[in-house]
């Protein structure tokens, strides 16, 4: 009987402590009073997760290889077809490209914006039943990672860093339900807000201009923020799959398929700087060469 009373007391105390923690965390938000606790956990679990990931990463790549066995042949066929299409496109676009290159050189864009990327490995993933789409990567404050930096992989935008430990950083993926990114349609330059859906294969883009022309196949890139944080500009996010709502309707939403496949991600890059090497040169209007004056006459 005494044991049972003691057990109930312990239970009540622990439940009370949990509820207190929940309330403190909800009130404080990020950077609140529980931040030191999270930092300590990141400092302790970061190296442990790195070590464990180093041990199991060969196993993981093996499992990934086996589970995608059947798709390989399809993928090869698809890539060959795409290669053909692209070769034709490259050949026909040569003239356009020359013109664009000339314009780029004129503005000095190509050389002035340099993106530095630190490669990182995904070492831990949040459990699916927690609803949050977050991963841990193996770069931390010692490697120059800071909160707010963009994370991308070969496909496109992956997410942004939301917290940093000494050896690791936590990335909120674009598909997380709380993630929002400023997006721009690459063709028409229309802007909108790209929000995660909580599903790994769907993003939604709310267009700011309800009359904006948008159709499936349009590419969406990041709009960019000041200083490249939280998102650096021009990173591909995804491609428009379908559009709900008719032009002029107040809420017009495009459904996107993200380029980065978050389920099979292992190597990602953190955009650590996007400095201009030199201030962008101004393009001043050069007076047109005047006709050689004909003297006499």
């Amino acid at each position, binding site marked *: 009987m005494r*044991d*049972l009373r*003691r*057990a109930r007391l*312990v*239970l009540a105390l*622990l*439940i009370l*402590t*949990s*509820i*207190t*923690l*929940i309330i*403190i*965390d*909800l009130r404080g938000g990020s950077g609140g009073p*529980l931040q030191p*606790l*999270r930092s*300590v*956990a*990141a400092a302790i*679990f970061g190296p*442990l*997760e790195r070590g*464990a*990931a180093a041990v*199991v990463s060969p196993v*993981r790549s093996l*499992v*990934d290889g086996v*589970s995608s066995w059947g798709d390989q042949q399809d993928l090869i066929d698809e890539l060959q077809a795409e290669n053909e299409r692209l070769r034709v496109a490259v050949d026909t676009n040569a003239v356009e490209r020359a013109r664009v290159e000339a314009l780029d050189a004129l503005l000095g864009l190509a050389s002035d914006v340099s993106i530095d990327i630190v490669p990182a490995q*995904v*070492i*831990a*993933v*949040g*459990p*699916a*039943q*927690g*609803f*949050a789409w*977050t991963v*841990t990567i193996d770069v931390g404050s010692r490697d120059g990672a800071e909160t707010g930096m963009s994370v991308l992989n070969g496909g496109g935008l992956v997410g942004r860093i*939301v*917290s940093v*430990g000494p050896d*690791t*950083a*936590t*990335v*909120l993926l674009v598909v*997380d*339900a*709380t993630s929002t990114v400023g997006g721009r349609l690459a063709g028409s330059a229309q802007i909108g807000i790209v929000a995660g859906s*909580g599903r790994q294969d769907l993003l939604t883009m709310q267009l700011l201009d309800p009359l904006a022309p948008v159709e499936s196949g349009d590419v969406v890139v990041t709009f960019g923020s000041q200083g490249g944080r939280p998102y650096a500009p021009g990173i591909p996010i995804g491609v428009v799959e379908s559009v709900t709502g008719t032009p002029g309707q107040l809420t017009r939403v495009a459904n996107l398929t993200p380029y980065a496949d978050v*389920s*099979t991600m292992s190597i990602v890059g953190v955009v650590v700087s996007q400095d201009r090497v030199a201030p962008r040169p101004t393009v001043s209007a050069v007076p047109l060469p005047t006709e050689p004056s004909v003297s006499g006459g």
Partner: protein
Amino acid sequence: MRWRQALLIITLLVVAVVIELTVLAPLPWWGATPPLVLVVVAALAFAFGPVTGAVSGFVGGLLLDLAPPAVATVGLSALVFTIVGYALGRVFDADERPLWLTTVVTTMAAGASVIAGAALGGLLGDERVRWEDVPGFFAAIVVYAAFLSLLCVPGIRALSRRVVPESFRR
């Protein structure tokens, strides 16, 4: 006090958290991630009773709430796992029960924890909670918890007997 018991529990829970996040979660499982931490909490509750069960649940849940890449509200898993640890410890106080029974009870607790986690998250205004995902999580977690408990419950019981034999002298 029984510092060896405390050390055993902490070690098991830390290892379980690291394995769940770095080994299990990145793999392409059907439905959901196998709930290793929860099953270890259940096994500890079966081995040591309700007090240790509740404490293990609290610690395990808190570690899962804090270890990167966690971003959800701190204390949520701690609350759910505390109740699971206490309840399983109460049901199975002291006696050794047949394996099938511990397995069934663990899977029930795992399924309940999914629903409790989603309900608590929704109640606290977590916009990530998607109820249409819950049935899939539930079904997957029940299956994974059954497999994991077949391994963990006898294993952790045997380990506990070796490390802290004084707890089992009855």
